[in-house]
């Protein structure tokens, strides 16, 4: 572990240097994800505007949720975005030969070699949205609220990472997995709305709701901690039971789901990578 902590700054410096060759690229990359998020935001805003609220969440709550989500999402983007290239053909072209030669964990190398500046844009945008819509909602800023939310948010990038990781690993069998990767990853769009809107009472809604909390837990990241703030004392439905809206309990659920998602994804990755056969270069 210590070795990796020592290595990472070197990798990061290399990644940043190679990015800095073209200054304009840096700005465009940063802007790219910001613009696409602004457009999603505008769509979200305009579609909710006529009704003002969704499933008990009013416009400011939904927008605050969106800002909150962008932060873990952006952190994941910054650190692990290279996985897209591996799913999109780098495995096929034999890039892994170089990586497997080195006595460093292959996953570490695959991620650390690249820094996606767009993620930084997302984090900045997320903070901006929270700053704009935060004052419009009543939030309790005491330690027992903020601390568990921050800890939960610190673990939740693992969810995005895990889902990218196992879908990318399919490329070890299939050569390319970009369409599966982006198909599954795009389900994150569901998470941008409070998951309670899918909890409509019929079985389809029930399945979607729980899948978003546990199977592809994009809905977990922002919805759970904020639901507990917005509806204090109200139980949150969960599988076949419901849990009280206790901040520390919710933090525990998020940490548990994030870590177990990542552990499973990593297990699959380590199995799948054994399937890799060199291009023979």
């Amino acid at each position: 572990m210590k070795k990796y902590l020592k290595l990472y700054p070197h990798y990061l410096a290399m990644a940043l240097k190679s990015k800095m060759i073209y200054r304009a690229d840096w700005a465009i990359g940063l802007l790219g994800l910001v613009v696409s998020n602004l457009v999603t935001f505008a769509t979200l805003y305009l579609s909710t505007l006529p009704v003002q609220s969704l499933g008990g969440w009013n416009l400011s709550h939904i927008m605050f949720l969106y800002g909150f989500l962008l932060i873990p999402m952006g952190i994941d983007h910054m650190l692990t975005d290279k996985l897209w290239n591996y799913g999109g053909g780098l495995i096929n072209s034999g890039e892994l030969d170089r990586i497997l030669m080195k006595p460093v964990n292959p996953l570490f190398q695959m991620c650390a070699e690249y820094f996606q500046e767009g993620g930084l844009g997302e984090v900045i945008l997320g903070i901006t949205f929270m700053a704009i819509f935060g004052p419009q909602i009543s939030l309790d800023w005491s330690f027992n609220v903020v601390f568990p939310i921050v800890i939960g948010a610190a673990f939740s990038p693992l969810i995005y990472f895990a889902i990218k990781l196992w879908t990318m690993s399919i490329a070890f069998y299939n050569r390319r997995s970009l369409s599966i990767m982006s198909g599954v990853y795009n389900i994150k769009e569901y998470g941008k709305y409070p998951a309670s809107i899918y909890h409509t009472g019929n079985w389809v809604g029930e399945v979607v709701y729980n899948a978003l909390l546990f199977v592809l837990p994009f809905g977990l990241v922002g919805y759970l901690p904020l639901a507990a703030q917005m509806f204090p004392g109200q139980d949150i439905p969960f599988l076949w039971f419901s849990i009280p809206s206790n901040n520390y309990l919710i933090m525990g659920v998020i940490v548990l789901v994030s870590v177990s998602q990542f552990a499973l994804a990593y297990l699959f990755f380590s199995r799948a990578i054994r399937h890799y056969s060199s291009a023979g270069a």
Partner: protein
Amino acid sequence: MLRNPFKKYKGFVRGEFLNLFAFRTEIIGWVAQDIVTLLIMVFLWLSIYKENANNPINGFTYPEMIAYLVTASLSSQWINNGSTFRSVNDDITEGQISSWLIRPVSYRGKNFACTLGDCLGNFVLFFFPLATIALLIFTFGLGLPFPAWYNILFYLLSGFLAIVIIDSLDFLIAQLGFLTNSLFGIFIIKSAIFAFLSGSTIPYSFFPEWAQKVMPYLPFAGLSSTPVSILLGRFAVTDSLISIGLSSAWAVGLYLFSVYANHRMIKHVVAVGG
């Protein structure tokens, strides 16, 4: 003897068309992804309309809204699937442009022909079967009227104009490849802005008042809002004709501009010695 000037481009159309058939499994993945996105939308709008006691919002009832968004998403399958942006970008970064310049075809024309092949392939392979299913669902499941025959014709015409507009814009934007290496970033920005301004993510009637007045006159309206509104019978015949006229003007103007840009670009290539 007069030779048909379009004949030499037929090979590009055919080549792209066949190429698409060869890679259909990969593309099925992308289509599946669009279907997932559509499902999100159905859920979302269901809850929005539930908040409003199922009353119409901004001129759309729930079935009309679903029909609009599904049609917009399916239409982009054949309208917005050209190869120009990617191939111009590749030609610039890999220096292939010079090899195109020594061939007896126009570089702009070759790119447009390839896009037509892509769009045709997507139309036959994906759009037609999916749209038929969707249309049956709209008519028998949601109880919406079946599109009039002339609206289907207008839709196809307006879809073709949309291809010309998008392809020309793509060609123009791809020129930025001379200035930056980060065309993926530009691609993301472009796709997001086009999707939003063309009215394919949300109809124009949800836009603020002032924007509603401006949008129909921009080239983006022709990309999605116009063809979809025509097909679903949201426009009277005269409105359809006016919108198609506007799209035609944009299509011709932008295509000519892209041809001009192509000439300028060639000079640039010579200047850097490629």
